[in-house]
């Protein structure tokens, strides 16, 4: 086997894996705090990609042939803010009223599916009515697709930047969780929500912060995903979101580091298996679930082995 080919696969796997990782962190944070599989999280990532696309369109007057870096980063910043607000809104308008009423878990899950489907069909209507079609090509500064040659490897800049960015963001999230007051509150909330409320902490603010943090990361993941497959559609978040959730479980749901590791494993599997066994290429999308089923069978706590009775994040 050619060494260059193997290295190429590893780098591509890292790059794809970091997108899953960015989305998986959001799942793991919300699951850790509320014990809720936030089905809408994949669609939050879609909202991130779409709002970046719309912001770019508005900023450039819908002429995408030359996008400057400044415009691009403004658009991404707008997208992060919008997506965080959408994330907080899903909590405030849907999950919080149910939690306050003490609704059973199944109601929360159905609501999550409802939000997911609502966002998909809403953006489907928006895309059809105002953007001129369900599928949109995603444009970004040419610099990201500049090819770097290292030995026999040919790597676009984007493929290198995304994993590095993901690791920096992971460190950032870990810093927030373990070195700031909000982070301590989040971990305390994950441990025992009622006691934390009794201690006078503003649980709504903390949970809202968790949703905003997860959504912001999902927005970055969504933009990265849109740049890698330069196209977006309203249903893109569904499958990616599910895979990211599978990655979070593989890594150990509730663990932020686990989510990133799970994301990388899934990314590797999706790139390497079709790379080495081309006949399995069509099955790429199924790997995540097969992996998930095996993890549930043999190690339900995932790689990081988070045991919810004793530890968090």
């Amino acid at each position, binding site marked *: 086997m050619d060494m260059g080919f193997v290295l190429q696969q590893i780098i591509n796997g890292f790059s794809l894996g970091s997108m899953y990782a960015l989305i998986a962190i959001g799942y793991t944070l919300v699951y850790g705090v509320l*014990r809720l*599989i936030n*089905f809408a999280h994949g669609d939050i990532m879609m909202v991130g990609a779409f709002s970046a696309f719309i912001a770019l369109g508005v900023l450039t007057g819908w002429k995408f042939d030359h996008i400057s870096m400044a415009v691009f980063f403004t658009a991404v910043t707008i997208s992060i803010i919008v997506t965080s607000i959408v994330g907080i809104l899903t909590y405030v308008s*849907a999950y919080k*009223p*149910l939690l306050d*009423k003490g*609704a*059973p*878990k*199944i*109601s929360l*899950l*159905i*609501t999550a*599916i*409802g*939000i997911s*489907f*609502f966002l998909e*069909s*809403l953006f*489907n*209507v928006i895309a*059809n*009515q105002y953007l001129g079609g369900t599928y949109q090509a995603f444009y970004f500064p040419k610099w990201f697709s500049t090819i770097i040659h290292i030995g026999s490897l040919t790597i676009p800049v984007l493929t290198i930047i995304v994993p590095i960015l993901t690791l920096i963001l992971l460190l950032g999230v870990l810093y927030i969780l373990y070195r700031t007051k909000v982070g301590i509150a989040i971990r305390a909330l994950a441990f025992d929500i009622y006691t934390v409320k009794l201690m006078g902490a503003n649980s709504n603010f903390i949970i809202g912060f968790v949703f905003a943090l997860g959504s912001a990361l999902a927005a970055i993941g969504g933009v990265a995903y849109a740049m890698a497959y330069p196209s977006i559609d309203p249903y893109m978040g*569904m*499958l990616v979101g*599910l895979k990211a*959730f*599978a990655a979070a*479980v593989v890594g150990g749901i509730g663990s932020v580091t686990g989510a990133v590791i799970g994301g990388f494993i899934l990314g590797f599997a999706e790139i390497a298996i079709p790379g080495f066994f081309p006949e399995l290429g*069509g*099955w790429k*999308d*199924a790997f*995540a*679930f*097969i992996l*998930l*089923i*095996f993890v*549930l*069978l043999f190690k*339900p706590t995932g790689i990081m082995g988070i045991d919810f009775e004793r530890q968090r994040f």
Partner: protein
Amino acid sequence: MSAKKYFALIAIVTAIFIAFLYFSPHIFGSYTITVLGNIYIFIILAISYNLINGVTGQFSLEPNGFVAIGAYVTAILLLSPELKEELYMLSPPLPLIRDVFLNPNNPINPFLALLISGAFSALLALILAFPVFRVRGDYLAIVTLGFGFIIRIFLINNPEISNGSMGLDSIPGFASYFWIGVICLVAVILIYNIVYSKFGRAMKAVRDDEDAALAMGVNTFKTKTLAFMTSAFFEGVGGGLLASSIGSISPDQFTFMLTFQLLIIIVLGGLGSMSGAIIGTFLFLGSMELLRPLDNSAWHLGPIHGIPGLRMVVFSILLLLIMLFARRGLLGDKEIWDYIKIKRNKY
């Protein structure tokens, strides 16, 4: 209710419904009959979905996967080998797939095909249940949702089994309006008897308090697995009926949209209520037909214009509103006669 009264009641309901099935094509137009036939199939799907989601309380998103399996198994069983040779354009069918054939001219065979479809779905449900119910049911939703995607990927990537994305057509139309209605009735009676049996009480115990049920000696793993399998069985049968009544199937027909529609139906009717699921089906499919103009861009009402896809926005908002303000749906987890009659102890 004594056993004698119960059987008398079932006989009366059956007689009335079959009379209705027999005479309704003479009363209503063909459009209404098509919609009604569709409603009967959806009733089968909704009450079986309600069995796992409402009665057992395990949040699952499986219907589209099992309906697809049922549809394909029925289609493959009922298409003749010669026809399959012709239909499979992307790649010749596997010898096994080509040769399995139940001649639909024999009146028993279509029903046999439906039973096999159901059994096949139930078997797959058993395989899925093992990893999922070992841990708490949380992951069921994700695994079943992923399962739907896997089925779709499988159907698209194995043209020698399913003719890939082209799908299958010329499926024998044995599922006439009358027979769909009869099968729907049988399914309703069977599932009703399951829900109000000892086994059904075990399911409700699992829903209400899994730990307590376990402590009282209910084998929760077995209960959940059997509920899931029963649900899958009837969804497979419903899929077979759908394939036969439409006549052509393709992987794109069985997306998550189908599951979402069923979810709205059972939430609208009230999770855990069978009569609720049936009423929900009528209301949902009826309003789907009534709101059809919303998807048509030529339609407008004052400033509101129809936009393709607007209907699903309306329905997803409807689902969210039900969850937020009327979580129990129309009937809660009771049956409609519990409201009509003087309350008495059912158990």
